[in-house]
Each structure stands twice: as structure tokens, then as C-alpha cells.
């Protein structure tokens, strides 16, 4: 079954659960629960949890703001209508860039829609919040019934592939240092690909945080690994770039190359080797920028290895 079909199935289960549960828990507006249960469903567990958390948090904030603005508008029709349109404006503005802010303004415009319709009450905002929480819980339950893939699992595979790509950049850098005359026409393309992947990796990482939020140490460790991995890619690209401009040679290049590549290999093997933690000595021409990048790459590899 494809991922889209599974997600659709999960949404159908969430809707069915909400239809059964919501009338038992909330009598006034059960459709809000159904709505939230369906809209926070996503392709992975991490993204569903993230969306649910944003939805609940920003609905609470929106309810408070809606209540305060309702108080300020003091029954003036023109002011209430203006607030409604302003909330629609900002909800549309944030639709693509920020789900939390979009949710906040959606809550505001729902509040003012009821105000304009003459159905507003302070209790209404509380019901909205309760229904949002219930809808979120139902969505999480649906994600367990029709299991959503975990981003953390996918991240591990992506990280391994990403380290290999970084390694390729470093290898090419060493090749250019050894043979400055070497033509390397594809480097712009491969660099662009690596940077795009780094961006995607950071997006996935945000979702992983929600899957491991209850394991604080693991969460911090994963964040460090990701931060160092992304920095590794930038330094690897920097190394590759400066290698092309190197004016003077670096002595014992083959040994340095072997040591650095060995560190990359160790990232994929079990933690049995402590040699990686010892600093690599980068001798030779001290004023060569490649020297700095090479040393920094080694430091980052050691930091990642320490966290694995």
C-alpha cells in the first residue's frame, strides 16, 4: 500500500473514531473534534505529532487573543468585522510559511465569525480548545491504529547516505590537492545537491524531535549529531573549494587522506574504536586554508562519533 493510501486510511479511521467519540465527550460542537482529528493527520508520526502540538498550542493562544480582542471591540460591529478580515488576511499570509501562526489566525477568525453572527460567548472559546485537544488525541490514536512510519528511522538511513556524500566531497578535495591540474566539472552540481539534501535533513529533524520528545538525552544527542552533520557538509564543501585554490602543497597528504576517510568509515561501524577521538595532526603549510578546513572536518567527525 502506498504512503498516500495509508495516510488516507489513517484520516478515515480518525474521522470514524471522532464521529463515535466526540458526541460522548462534547455535546455542543462535535464537528470541531472531527475536523481537528482529520486535519492534523500527516504522512509520518513525527509530522502528525508536530502538527497536533502546534494546533493545540496555537489554538489556546488564539482563544486567549480572541477573547481579549472581543473585549476590546466592545460590541462595535465595524471593529469586529475588521478583526475578522485582518485574521483572514494573516491566516492566508502564513498558510505556506508557518502552520502555527496560520492556526492562531484561523482560531481568531473563527472567534470573530461567531461574534459577527451574534453567537459568541466566552465558553465557546473553551469548547473550541477542548475539542481541539480531543481531536488531536484521536489523530494520535489513529496514527497508532494505522501505523505511521517514524521519521527517526528514515533519518538514520538518510544520515548514513548524507555522510557518504560528504565523504565524496572530501575525497574529491584530496584528489584536487594531490593533482591540482585535475578537472572537476561536476562539482557545482554535486554541491547544489548536497546543500538541498542538508536543507531537507533539517526539516526531517524537526519532526524527529516530536517522536523522541520524552527521551530528553536522545533528543539532545540527535540534535547535536544533526547540527554537526550539517556543519560537516558545509566544511566538506569548503574543503573541496579551497583545494582548487591551494597555492602550496600539504605534506604527507596520503596519510591525512587515509586518516580522514577512516573516520568517515567508522561512522558506519559499531562503537569499538577510540582512535577517532584522538586529534589528527595536520602538518605542513600552516597558512593554507585547506589546512583549517581539513582539521575542522576531523573535529566534526570526532564529535559525531562521540554521540553515536
Amino acid at each position, binding site marked *: 500500500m502506498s504512503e498516500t493510501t495509508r495516510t*488516507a486510511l489513517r*484520516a*478515515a479511521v480518525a474521522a470514524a473514531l471522532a464521529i463515535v467519540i466526540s458526541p460522548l465527550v462534547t455535546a455542543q460542537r462535535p464537528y470541531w473534534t472531527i475536523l481537528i482529528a482529520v486535519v492534523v493527520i500527516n504522512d509520518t508520526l513525527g509530522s502528525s505529532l508536530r502538527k497536533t502540538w502546534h494546533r493545540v498550542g496555537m489554538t489556546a493562544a488564539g482563544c486567549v487573543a480572541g477573547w481579549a480582542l472581543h473585549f476590546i471591540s466592545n460590541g462595535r460591529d465595524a471593529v469586529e468585522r475588521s478583526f475578522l*478580515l485582518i485574521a483572514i488576511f494573516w491566516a*492566508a499570509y502564513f498558510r505556506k510559511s508557518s502552520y502555527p501562526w496560520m492556526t492562531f489566525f484561523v482560531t481568531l477568525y473563527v472567534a470573530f465569525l461567531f461574534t459577527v453572527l451574534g453567537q459568541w460567548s466566552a465558553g465557546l472559546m473553551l469548547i473550541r480548545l477542548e475539542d481541539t485537544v480531543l481531536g488531536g488525541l484521536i489523530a494520535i490514536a489513529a496514527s497508532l491504529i494505522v501505523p505511521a512510519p517514524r521519521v527517526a528511522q528514515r533519518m538514520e538511513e538518510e544520515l548514513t547516505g548524507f555522510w557518504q556524500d560528504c565523504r565524496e566531497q572530501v575525497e574529491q578535495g584530496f584528489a584536487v590537492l594531490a593533482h591540482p591540474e585535475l578537472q572537476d566539472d561536476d562539482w557545482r552540481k554535486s554541491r547544489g545537491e548536497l546543500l538541498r539534501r542538508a536543507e531537507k535533513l533539517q526539516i526531517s529533524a524537526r519532526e524527529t524531535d516530536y517522536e523522541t520528545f520524552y527521551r530528553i538525552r536522545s533528543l539532545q544527542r540527535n540534535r547535536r549529531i544533526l547540527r554537526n552533520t550539517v556543519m560537516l557538509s558545509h566544511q566538506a564543501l*569548503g574543503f573541496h573549494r579551497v583545494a582548487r585554490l591551494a597555492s602550496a602543497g600539504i605534506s604527507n597528504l596520503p596519510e591525512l587522506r587515509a586518516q580522514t576517510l577512516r573516520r568517515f568509515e567508522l561512522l558506519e561501524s559499531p562503537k569499538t574504536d577510540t582512535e577517532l577521538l584522538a586529534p589528527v595532526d595536520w602538518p605542513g603549510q600552516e597558512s593554507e*586554508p585547506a589546512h*583549517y578546513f581539513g582539521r575542522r572536518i576531523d573535529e566534526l567527525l570526532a564529535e559525531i562519533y562521540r554521540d553515536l
Partner: protein
Amino acid sequence: MMQLKHAAKTVLAVVIALEAFRFLHSQAALYAGMSAGFLMQSTAGNDRRTRQISMALMGAASTLAVRLGSELSGQHLAKELLLVAAAFGAYYVRRFIPGKAMFPMFAFVLTLLATVQPGGAGAALPMMTAVSGGFLAAFAVYFYLLPDESLRAFRHSVDLFVFRLQHARRNPGHEQGDLRVLHRAVAFEEEERETLGKVAPALCSQVLADQYEALQILIVVFDIERQPESGAAQQMAAQFTHDYLNEIIIRLEQDRVLLDA
């Protein structure tokens, strides 16, 4: 800028729809306003024609959904089955939409609201009329009154990128804020890339490649600044990255002139 314009267009479409149905029926006006707002977000694809088709299909689906919702509102089991099917469908059809956009969800929202609105089957016709009216308002505003100017938005985004890049270099200490804006500009241009690729494919790819490179070098610059002093190699690396960043800025400014042309 493009987001601001889109938000303003959404409000305009909602106001037009609300005003058009204001004297008919308050419920109808509400549906017209909602559907106009929703349909303004319901476009996908890289060209005007595909976007028109996606909005028209969503308009038709919403009208049908509202009809079914209000006609089945009095029948418990049928209504509930419809909602489950609509939830499934809203996610399933994403596979046919470029970028798996989430806008089919709006059809589910309208179905859900139609099943709980008072009036039952009798309200189906006014609601369908309202949703169709909302569609017309959204279509007219989106494609005719204030059409998108992607190239202009792309150029503006490049200007913003260069401005923030220079700001980041001259005013250290705001790393996170600057990087966030720069990342957002690149992400926006990535989204617009295919649309604009038809105008100047090589140039757009070149601009994006330069921006990715600038971002990467800037991150390295910040990293070098954070490291403790460690000698000549570090100074040389700092010098190299600064010079290289200057080179990219000059390149981006040249690209910007070409985009104008």
C-alpha cells in the same frame, strides 16, 4: 511580498463573495465567503492553465460536497459514511496534485459544515449557489483582477537575499535571524523555480545555485568566527571565505540585472 499580495487577494475575494450574497441569505453569504477564501488557496501546478484547472476542479468538488453534505444531513449513518469517505478522499487525491498540496482538505471542511448546518436537504440549493459564487469570486480575483507576477516576486526575493546577506556580514550577532530569512528566500524560490524555469531556466537555476553557495559560505564564516584563534590557517580560511562571499554577491547582482532584462 508575494505572500502579502496573496493574503490581500484572499481578503478581497472573501469580501466580494460576502457582499454578493449578503442580501440573499446570511448562511449563503457565509458559505460564499468561506469557499472564496478556501478556493484562493486551492491552486497547484506550474502554469496559469494548470492552476485554473485545479481551482475549477476544487470548485466543482466543493459544490458537490456541499450538496451531498446538506442532503444527507438528516440521515445519521449516511452522513457519517460520507464524512469518513470525504476524509479518505481528501488525503487520497493528493497523489494527483503536484507537491501533494493539502487543499482538498477544504472540500472536507465544507462537507463537514454542510452536514451540521440547519436547513437539511432544503438548504442544498442555496449552499451550492453560494459555493459556486465563491468560486467565481476567487477565480476572477486570482486570475484576472490581480494575477500573479512570479518573475517580479522572484526578483524581489533575490534582492531580499542579497540585502540580508550583506546585512549578515556587516552586522554580526544576528546570525539566526539572518539565516532564517535567507533560508526562507531560497525555499520560496525553490517553489517558484519550475514556474520561472519556463521563462529563463538557466538563469533561475544559476541564481539558486549561487544562493545555496552563499548560504553555505556564510555558515562557514559564522563557524570560523566562533572557533578559538588557531593560527594562520584559520585567518587564511576567514579571508578566503570573505573574499569568496564577495564574489558570489557580485555574481548575484549581475544575475539580478539579467533577470531585469
